[in-house]
Structure formats: structure tokens, C-alpha cells
């Protein structure tokens, strides 16, 4: 087992500095032939930097890489591909308008100006498909394929280049539970064929189920590498990731629904750009409950939230908040109601990164007391409120004059929460509120949502992370292609059932 020739990859004492930050500090990693090796860590722990160096996208400062026992330089992706390393990015690197075949043969190294090897490639892909149980249609245009299929194209792309090691960055992030099962089947097949996989993830149960070895990174350092065994559990792994013991359980009081706060009746909105719009959605949301909205990214989540906030035109149907018909209200009018809105895009929609925390705090109602009047801002009062809320929401920053852009993602989100739900509100619309946050900040968001709910707010919690939805929600809805596939009480919600709904299949 520990025979030298069974070792595919050795990264030794890798260090990488960006300006003053050490992104990777003396990191070593060994991957054996035919193993699935998990790389765990929170956002910013240095996983991506390490992998980008392995794939030649980032140049390392110190350390060496050995491939099958021999030192390799790897200064560019071309070199990585040549030695047999393939990478599947979280955001697929596919040319959407090309066919599957064109995507797969793109970037062939030999014979630069010569004719494309269309037929020969077709045969090779067919052989790969059969061997690994991947069934792909080479003639299809990539943009017409569902995400799961696109991922298969990425896998075939790497196999076509004869990669022996696949780096997969958060491959399950965009999949439904059923698609995850299919992916795991493929990955197991690859392992049987002697391919190695580096599986980057923060989903602990998946890692425990699939992987042979687990390496954990924190703050740019490799904390430890351990073989997977039945003794391991999510809690232990999480404590290694964070560096201390933490409680992953969400404690929830029983739900006492009150009167209706938000109601949508046959609401429709046109799609914009690549989105899918809102198609005939009806729902009711009551005080004191959290309605979790599950769905794969890009299935109308942002359309729905923006429609409720008046950022999109209601094509037909009716939306009522607190008994008022807001169908024709402007966003400003809706904003004057007691509503907290946490938009999906923290960096562009929620905060002005070049503004101080103070101004970001006042930005919703700069012309209203206590922030200011029609003519001027009350800077003193804004500073006082900001400082108070920063303390209350435990925002780590040098002061209220700090630029929002200088804060970590978790602290930025705390600022948004402080502004949006710092005062009591009746309705909260939260879209992907934990995206990119570490475990601590994620739990802070959970606690804030549950506290608001217990104080009588109605919460619409939109997320792509099914685990979160299951942990927080009192009722669960599922979005697919802009349609609400169904709403069910938490007790009746099973992962399998939600997965099918997420994929757009009707469940009786």
C-alpha cells in the first residue's frame, strides 16, 4: 500500500505569499493512486490557492511538486495538463455556445493549425463514455445542457486529456441530491480504474461518505491528514476546520404561526438576461415562521426576491404585504415598510464597498430620521447608531469609518444583517445569506434568523444549501425554472423528495 510507485502526487513544503498575506504556509500534500482525497477547509483557508498552484494557474514561491516520484515544474495549466493533472472548477470552464465535442477537443496540444480531429475524437469519447459509464451527447450545445450534464462534459474533458488526477472544486455545490448520487457513482468508477481525485468541499457528510483520505487546512496551514474511518464524524472534522469545538446543531423552538404577512397570488415576472423569471407563484407566509426555499442556483431565486422587493415588474398576479397590495409599489415605497432584505449579491446589491460602514448603515433611508433629513446627513447620529449596532452584531472592524470592502465576508454580512434586521421587522427576505461565509458566521446568520422569527417576523429563507433549509425551516418550498414545485411542512420533507422537485419532477 505504501509502495512508492503508488504515490501519484507529492506537494512538499509549498509556500505562497500575496502581498503581506501568507496564503499557503509550508503546506504538504500526498495523493495516492486510485484514492479520493478530500481537501477540507473554510473559505480563505488556502485550499483554492494550493490547487491553483498545482494546476499552474498561480505560481508558487517555495516548495516542490513531485509527480509519480519525479519533480515537475508546473508553471502553467499547459504543463499540468501535460503531466496528467486535470482541474474541474466550481464555475465550469466551458464555452457555452460550443458543442460538447468542440469543448472536449479544445486546447489539444499537438498539431496546432491542422484540421480538428472530429471523427477520431468522437470515437475516443465514445470509448471513454462506455468505460466510465458516462453517457454524453457530443453534438449538443453546452448551454442547453443541465448543470449535471455540463459537469460530465468537464469530466470527459479531463479524461480525454488522459488525466490521472482530477482536482474537483466543490463539485456538488450546484447539484440536486439525485445528481450528487450519480456523480458519486462516476467518481467511484474512476477510482476503480486507478484515477485519483482531489475533492474540495465543505460539506462534511459527503466527504465522510465518499473519500478515502481527508486533509484539513486552516489559515493557510495544513492541519492534518487522516484516513477516513467509521470513527470520524462531522463534528470532529468541523472542529479541526475551525480550530476549536463547535456545535453544529441548530436549536429551534416550536413554530407558532400568526397572521399572514406576505402573500403572492399567481405572481409572474419576465426573465431578465439568463434568468428564468417567476412563473405563476402563489404562497402565504405567516408571522413567526421560516419558509425555506430550496432549489439549484439559477432557478428563479433572485427573480422571486427581486419581484417581492419591487425591483422587477409584476407581469400579472398580486402581491400583498401586511394587508397592503404592493403590486404597483416602487422599491422605495416597499422599503418604507418594516422589511429586512438580504440580497444575493453582497458585494454589489447589499453594500457599497467603497463606502464606510457608517454610510452603508444609513444607505436605506438617508433622508429619514435618525439618519438625516431631506437636505443633510446627520453624521454624528449615524456614527453613534453604527457603533451601537456593530457591537450588537459583533462586527470586527477598526471603526465605523472603515470601508465595507476591507471587511471579511462574514463581517460584511453582519453589517448587512445589522442594517436590515437590527430594528424589529415584520418580514425578512434573505437570499443565499450564508454564501461564502465560514462556520461561525453561518451560525450567526442562523441565530439572527431564528431570533427574528421567535420575535414574530415572517422569514423567507432562500438558499441552495439543502442542509441549511432542512435545519432552519418550518415549511419548505422548492423552486425549479421559476415555478414553485410545492410547499410542505418540515416534518414531511425528505431529502429524496425535495431532490426530485429540485430537478423539476412532479411528486405525488
Amino acid at each position, binding site marked *: 500500500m505504501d509502495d512508492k510507485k503508488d504515490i501519484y502526487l507529492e506537494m512538499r513544503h509549498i509556500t505562497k505569499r500575496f502581498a503581506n498575506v501568507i496564503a499557503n504556509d509550508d503546506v504538504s500534500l500526498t495523493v495516492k493512486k486510485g484514492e479520493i482525497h478530500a481537501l477540507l477547509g473554510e473559505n480563505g483557508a488556502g485550499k483554492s490557492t494550493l490547487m491553483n498552484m498545482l*494546476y499552474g*494557474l498561480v505560481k508558487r514561491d517555495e516548495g516542490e511538486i513531485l509527480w509519480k516520484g519525479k519533480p515537475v515544474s508546473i508553471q502553467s495549466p*499547459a504543463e499540468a495538463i501535460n503531466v496528467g493533472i486535470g482541474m474541474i472548477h466550481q464555475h465550469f470552464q466551458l464555452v*457555452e455556445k460550443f458543442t460538447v465535442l468542440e469543448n472536449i477537443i*479544445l486546447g489539444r*496540444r499537438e498539431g496546432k*493549425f491542422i484540421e480538428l480531429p472530429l471523427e477520431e475524437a468522437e470515437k475516443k469519447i465514445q470509448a471513454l463514455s462506455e468505460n466510465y459509464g458516462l453517457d454524453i451527447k457530443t453534438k449538443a450545445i453546452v448551454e442547453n445542457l443541465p448543470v449535471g450534464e455540463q459537469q460530465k462534459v468537464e469530466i470527459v474533458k479531463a479524461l480525454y486529456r488522459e488525466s490521472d488526477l482530477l482536482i474537483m472544486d466543490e463539485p456538488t455545490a450546484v447539484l440536486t441530491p439525485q445528481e450528487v448520487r450519480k456523480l458519486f457513482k462516476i467518481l467511484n468508477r474512476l477510482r476503480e480504474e486507478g484515477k485519483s481525485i482531489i475533492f474540495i468541499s465543505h460539506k462534511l457528510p459527503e466527504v465522510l461518505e465518499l473519500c478515502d483520505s481527508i486533509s484539513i487546512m486552516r489559515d493557510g496551514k495544513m492541519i492534518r491528514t487522516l484516513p477516513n474511518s467509521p470513527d470520524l464524524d462531522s463534528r470532529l472534522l468541523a472542529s479541526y476546520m475551525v480550530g476549536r469545538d463547535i456545535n453544529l446543531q441548530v436549536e429551534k423552538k416550536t413554530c407558532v404561526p400568526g397572521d399572514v404577512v406576505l402573500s403572492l397570488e399567481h405572481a409572474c415576472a419576465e426573465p431578465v438576461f439568463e434568468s428564468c423569471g417567476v412563473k405563476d407563484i402563489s404562497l402565504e407566509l405567516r408571522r413567526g415562521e421560516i419558509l425555506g426555499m430550496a432549489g439549484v442556483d439559477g432557478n428563479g431565486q433572485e427573480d422571486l426576491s427581486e419581484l417581492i422587493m419591487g425591483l422587477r415588474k409584476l407581469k400579472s398576479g398580486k402581491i400583498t404585504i401586511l394587508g397592503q397590495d404592493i403590486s404597483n409599489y416602487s422599491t422605495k415605497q416597499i422599503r418604507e415598510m418594516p422589511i429586512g432584505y438580504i440580497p444575493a449579491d453582497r458585494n454589489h446589491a447589499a453594500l457599497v464597498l467603497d463606502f464606510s460602514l457608517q454610510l452603508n448603515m444609513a444607505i436605506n433611508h438617508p433622508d429619514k430620521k435618525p439618519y438625516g433629513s431631506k437636505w443633510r446627513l446627520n453624521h454624528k447620529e449615524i456614527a453613534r447608531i453604527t457603533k451601537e449596532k456593530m457591537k450588537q452584531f459583533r462586527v470586527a472592524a477598526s471603526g465605523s469609518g472603515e470601508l465595507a470592502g476591507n471587511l471579511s465576508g462574514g463581517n460584511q454580512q453582519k453589517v448587512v444583517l445589522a442594517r436590515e434586521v437590527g430594528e424589529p421587522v415584520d418580514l425578512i427576505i434573505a437570499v443565499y445569506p450564508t454564501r461564502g461565509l465560514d462556520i461561525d458566521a453561518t451560525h450567526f446568520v442562523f441565530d439572527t434568523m431564528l431570533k427574528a422569527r421567535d420575535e414574530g417576523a415572517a422569514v423567507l429563507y432562500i438558499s441552495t444549501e439543502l442542509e441549511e433549509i432542512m435545519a432552519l425551516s418550518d415549511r419548505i418550498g422548492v423552486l425549479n425554472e421559476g415555478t414553485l414545485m410545492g410547499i410542505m411542512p418540515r416534518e414531511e420533507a425528505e431529502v429524496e423528495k425535495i431532490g426530485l422537485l429540485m430537478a423539476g419532477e412532479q411528486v405525488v
Partner: protein
Amino acid sequence: MNVTVLVEYLNSTIRVSVPIILVAIGVCYSERGGVYAMGSEGYMLISAFVSVVTMIYTNNHFISVLAGILSGMLVAGIFSYFTVILGADQVICGLGINFVMLGLTSSLQRLLWGVTGIPRIPVMNAVEIPVLSKIPLIGSMLFNQPIPIYLTYLLIPLVWWIMFRSTWGLQLRAVGENPSCADTLGISVRKTRILGIITGGAFCGLSGAVLSLSQVQTFTENISGGRGWFGLIAATFGGWNPLGATGAGLIFGAAESLQLRLQIMSKINISSYVILMIPYLVALLFILFIGKSRRHPAAMGKFYKKY
């Protein structure tokens, strides 16, 4: 309209179209790679000038055309340095190239030949292709033309093949659609784009040379007169496909040629200014139609920064 007039009209349509088609093909190369080809007018102008001057000194059509092509490539190379390496705005930079080339060629012309203007150069004779040119109507339209036009016939399918059937063509299109994807596959975005722009410059250069050497037979100020822009519109209308661009270029050629015919016909009582407008009106209509229907390469106009 009798047959002779029709044949003459068709023949001139082809002749007038060819420079526009060549520019359109050049534009395809640049823009498929994701870089706006705003400087095509400028490449044409410099090449028209350089090829005429070379012709005066060497009296050799082949060398002159080659010199024109090289000058177009050189200026395109400068444009690619600014836009692809330094990340300058592609539209502004392209417009700058056009203005500089217009000024440069006009002043050099005055400087070298004063007010008398550049002397006329020998005609590039039409070469009749036996048998084929005897096909009624189409024969004399397609096969009784100067050599550069035959060259264009051969270039069109070749360019299509390179764009859609060669490895480099696939890479060029990928760089224009999703440069970061190309990057992860080890394709150099910069090299591919620069090569696309310079190839485009070569086609614009050929176009300028054909215009001045075989059609106008001298260099006059602003000789291209918007053909670079027509090429840009034709490429867009043709969906950045060399075949589509050729079709669109032919329509422009037909309009331009009609305008020339109408000017000669003294019987028609319309102001010459209105007649001169015809090709531009056609261009305007094109723009109206392609407003929404064409999806340009996804990364067009965007600088790709390599970290």
C-alpha cells in the same frame, strides 16, 4: 434595362463588393477572438496608400499588394499591443487608429506630391477565364475580373474552413467566448487574440490594396470612404461567419454599384447627394435589423487580465 447594362451592373457589383467582403472577413477574425475591429478603416487607408506608393516605385502589382498587406498587419499589430497587452479601450483605440491613419496618409500625400496629387498608376487588367466566362450572365460577372478578385473567391471558403474546422479557429472562437476557459486549457489568450487581430489587419490591408490599385488606380484623400465601417456592419450582419459576411458584403456592393450607375445616368432627375446616400441608407437599415438579432461573441470588448 437591357442585358448589357445588367451584365455591366453585376460585374461592377462584384468588383465593388470585394473590398467590403475582405474587410468583413478581417473583422470576423478580430471579433471572433473577442476584440472590436474598430480600426478596420484605418488599416484599409494605410494599405491603400502604401500599395500605391510602392506601385509607383516598383511598377509591380504583386509587390505592391504585399506591401499593402504588410502595412495593414503592422498597424493592426500596434492596435493589438495597446488593446490586448496594455488593456486600452478597444473602441477608443480603434477610432484613434482611424483618425491617425486618415491624417497620416493625407499629409504624406500632400508632402510627397503637393497639390497635384499622386499620379495615376497602370490599370490592373481583367483576366478572362476561358470557358467559365462564357456562361451567360454569371460568366462575365464572376470570371472576367482582375486577379485579386479571383484570390478572394479562393479565400472565402479557406477562411471558413480555418474558422470552423481547424484547431486554431476553434481556439480563436473560444478565446472570444470564454477566455478564462481557454486559459485553463493552456491556450494563450493574448497570442491567439493578437494573431486574430493581425490576420484581420492583413485582410483589411488586402482590401485597401485592391481598392486603390485595381479600382481607383491612385490614392485620394479618405479613399476608403467608410468601406471599413461597411465591412464591420457586414461581419455583424453575417453573424461573424465568413460566408454570411460575404453575403452581406454583396448587398453593400450592389447598393454602392447602383449608386455609381445612377450617377452616370443623366436622365434620372434626382439630386446626386441623394444618390450618394444609397449605400449608407442600406447600412443604416442593416443596423436597424441587427439591433437585437445578433448575439456577438460573449467576451467581445472585454480585456482579459492574466494574473
